[in-house]
């Protein structure tokens, strides 16, 4: 996954009832936007150079621009033909998109108001269901809305946010099923508990996409339309191989960090990392749990430092800032850090500030993949308008690279918490997060 909730465990019930009621009220209002769902648009369609039918009718991009978009999306130099067709088409549309000031404002307001009319003349509607509010999910929503603006067949977008409460999440999911949007994007952080609703939504004729993470026990293509995510084990196997091959510290001790104790992400990523480390004679000297909170990260960073272990590499799916700061505050050089996308403009500033000093360190980052919601939009519209087939699983490659290699597309000047490499322009990010 690339979407590690900042509060992955369901929050205390304090927020359940008020937010749940608010969600119902919001949905009632949102139903105005979501009328006449599920019908096809009558707009004309085109074909891409690969022959794939697409509903997108705007300008195209050059092959070099597409290659640049692919690198920005995956941090890997791969050819378009080796990637899922939906991803390539998504990047082609996103790369060609130049949002006007008015469109940027629309994107920002759409996210802040949890929905909007996109101005399209078609009848398609998009529903987005998030597990809770955080900077990453806000960015994902904005990217999804921006992609929807590229299609005049889409009429409106509605966003619901479960505030990290399972009950609210399931209620919101049911509400969406009742409203029947044409395309439903579900970022499911609640494992198999949402599976019956995925099945209901699919049975109701809604193109339902599981993004960022799969649904345990589900059969993609049958229980839901398609899964849009990456292979966690593959990502971390690659990161661990990079660590054992590139470390210069001489130490063969690694640290593994994750959010919640016993979380689903680490249960998938850690065995893959450990397998590679063990094969190269490395050991895991420290494991820490942060709950994905700043305080948890500060505590874990200090505990790692206090343990006195000579850590050569740290693997953590979220941002490294607080852990690195713990080392720097103590006058120590941070170990090499491998992060799966929680790297922000602030991280980049921190890394740059220490370059050339005695405490310079390395950060290896993977793409945050804020484009996953975009993939679902594109795949859904193309399917409805042109009958373009959708793969049951759109699993994308994802690699870790040194942070300096992201400089070519880092949006310097964007708010500090903004993840590096969103597709949205800096001005829109500033409006969204500033």
């Amino acid at each position, binding site marked *: 996954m690339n979407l590690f909730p*900042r509060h992955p465990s369901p*929050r205390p019930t304090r927020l359940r009832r*008020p937010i749940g009621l608010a969600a119902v009220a919001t949905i009632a209002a949102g139903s105005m936007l979501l009328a006449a769902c599920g019908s096809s648009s009558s707009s004309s369609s085109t074909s891409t150079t690969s022959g794939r039918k697409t509903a997108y009718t705007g300008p195209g991009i050059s092959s070099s621009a597409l290659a640049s978009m692919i690198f920005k999306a995956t941090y890997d130099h791969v050819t378009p033909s080796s990637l899922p067709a939906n991803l390539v088409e998504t990047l082609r549309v996103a790369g060609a998109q130049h949002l006007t000031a008015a469109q940027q404002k629309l994107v920002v307001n759409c996210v802040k108001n949890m929905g909007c009319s996109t101005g399209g003349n078609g009848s398609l509607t998009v529903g987005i269901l998030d597990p809770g*509010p955080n900077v990453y999910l806000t960015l994902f929503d904005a990217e999804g809305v921006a992609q929807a603006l590229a299609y005049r067949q889409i009429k409106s977008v509605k966003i619901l946010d479960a505030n990290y409460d399972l009950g609210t999440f399931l209620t919101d999911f049911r509400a969406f099923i009742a409203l029947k949007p044409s395309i439903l994007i579900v970022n499911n952080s609640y494992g198999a508990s949402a599976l019956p609703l995925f099945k209901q939504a699919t049975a109701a004729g809604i193109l339902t996409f599981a993004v960022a993470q799969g649904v345990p026990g589900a059969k993609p293509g049958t229980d839901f339309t398609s899964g849009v995510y990456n292979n966690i084990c593959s990502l971390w196997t690659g990161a661990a191989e990079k660590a054992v091959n590139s470390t210069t510290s001489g130490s063969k001790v690694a640290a593994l960090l994750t959010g919640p104790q016993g979380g689903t992400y680490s249960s998938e990523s850690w065995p893959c990392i450990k397998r590679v480390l063990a094969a190269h004679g490395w050991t895991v000297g*420290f494991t820490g749990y942060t*709950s*994905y909170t700043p305080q948890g990260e500060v*505590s874990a960073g200090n505990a790692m430092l*206090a343990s006195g272990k000579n850590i050569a590499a740290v693997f953590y799916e979220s941002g490294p800032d607080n852990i690195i700061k713990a080392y720097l505050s103590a006058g120590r050089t941070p170990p090499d850090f491998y992060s799966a996308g929680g790297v922000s403009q602030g991280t980049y500033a921190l890394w740059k500030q220490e370059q050339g000093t005695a405490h310079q360190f390395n950060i290896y980052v993977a793409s945050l993949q804020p484009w996953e919601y975009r993939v679902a939009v594109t795949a859904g519209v193309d399917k409805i308008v042109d009958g373009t087939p959708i793969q049951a699983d759109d699993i994308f490659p994802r690699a870790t690279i040194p942070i300096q290699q992201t400089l070519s597309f880092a949006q310097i000047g964007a708010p500090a918490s903004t993840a590096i490499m969103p597709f949205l322009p800096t001005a829109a990010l500033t409006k*969204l997060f500033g």
Partner: protein
Amino acid sequence: MTPRQSSPSPDHRRILATASAAPADGGGVSWSRFAGVRFRFPPAYRVVWIALVLLVLACVVLAPAALNTISLRIVTALTGVLIVATLGELLVMTTGGIDVSAGAIMTLAAVIMVKTTNGLDSRMWPVAGVALLVCLAAGLANGVAVAVLRINALIVTLSMAGILSGAVLVWAGTNFSSSGQTPATLQSLTHKTVGPVSLIVIIALVLGVATSAALHGTRRGRGLVAVGCNPAAARALAMPVISYQVFSYAVAGGLYGIAGIILGGFLRQPDVSLGDPYQLVTIVAVALAGVSLTGGPSSVLSIFAACFFLTLLNEFLAVKSYSAGVQVMTQGLVLIAAVALVTAGGGRRFLPAWSARAVSKSRPDD
């Protein structure tokens, strides 16, 4: 002297009798002083100190790294934050109330600091003042709803937590400001240390001593405790019970605000999860310190110990790098054991009858 103290238990009467019978010239063993300490510091208050000593010993033997300079800096900093927040909870629980909005109010204070200052030092102090006023107002609203409108405290404070969390998201979003940072001066201040000890815990201790002095050394402070001991009796004595209760919630809101501002500075770039760990841990700390959950007297000294115990326990488990299952299980077992001992009055209830008699006979006042 509080009402609870004015009608002492048979055990306490024995102690008082001994105190009055003690030699006035101070010759020999001064049992009066001993008895006074025992009276003011009953077994329930002592348990956490015993637990703390055991934990420190465990650290020395099993995880010395948990007590090194690096660890102590973070442990004392987080202990300081917890003490400030727990002092607020203590005031509320002393009057017989409960407050689960501590975490939300802390987050609110930190968000106001980040959003309104946008990391600029020049705005720090005025904004800190505003943040504290807002937190006091939130606490006041809790107090009015609980004491005046007589709505259940748990429901009121739970709802307040929800309202504040929602308001924060509506007002500040998920990023708060373009810098996302608290002012540099606040960051610098909260990272200062005196040797291995964080300045935060020193500030917290000062606040704690002031709270203790106010609770035990002033008429109004003792009145607050009296209200918690027996509200009906306090009302019969024409004490302004409602005012005391409203006051305790309001001051608690202010203390949560201070804790939130300090923690925001320490974390540099806080997020909406800042206060989450404090929603329940403040209640655990108060319970661990031997304070009755139904209100009454308390020991700020034991609050210090309880907060240090809870933070050090986390550091011990983190440094040992135990697996997730072991960490969760250990935390649960240790806390249940400690709170059970507190509830059982220092463990005397668990002693076999012959042992309890032996302990009783060994007392100087028997």
